[in-house]
């Protein structure tokens, strides 16, 4: 049962990465690409946590934590730039 859940989660993450990269490549406007990179960041956090569970090394959860704390910084800077702030 747990194996099935992990397989389904990996398949969902795989599909989400493919969809996000597709939107990044196709996206006509800049805002589409920014939202795509924000989505891909969150998907990679979930991928790291899934891999931490699969490999049994829970040091990897710390990496996911640092990732979640720092990943909003770039999106915030770009958003401020688009609003002529910074």
């Amino acid at each position, binding site marked *: 049962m747990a194996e099935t859940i992990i397989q389904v989660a990996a398949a969902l993450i*795989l599909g989400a990465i493919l969809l996000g990269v597709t939107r990044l490549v196709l996206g006509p406007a800049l805002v589409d690409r920014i939202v795509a*990179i924000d989505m*891909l960041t969150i998907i990679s956090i979930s*991928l790291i946590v899934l891999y931490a569970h699969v490999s049994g090394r829970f040091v990897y959860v710390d990496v996911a934590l*640092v990732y979640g704390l720092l*990943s909003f910084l770039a999106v915030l800077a770009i958003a401020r730039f688009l609003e002529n702030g910074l």
Partner: protein
Amino acid sequence: MLQLLILVVCAGILVSGLLAACLKNLMAAMVSSGLAGLFASVSFLLLAAPDVAMAEAAIGSGLTTFIFVYALRSASNGAREP
């Protein structure tokens, strides 16, 4: 399934690097290069190097994009004034 995920992450590095080199809009190229750093960090972690992945996530994906945005803003301000 996990090996397929590793392959997809490596393909993501390739696609976002190509996009960063080919896009005309500088801001979109910056976003794509940040995404290349993000996928590289994930692949470092999948290759069992969590400390390298943490440094890459902090510097390569976060700080570099921030500095690029700051530099582009300074450069476009300087170009607009004269």
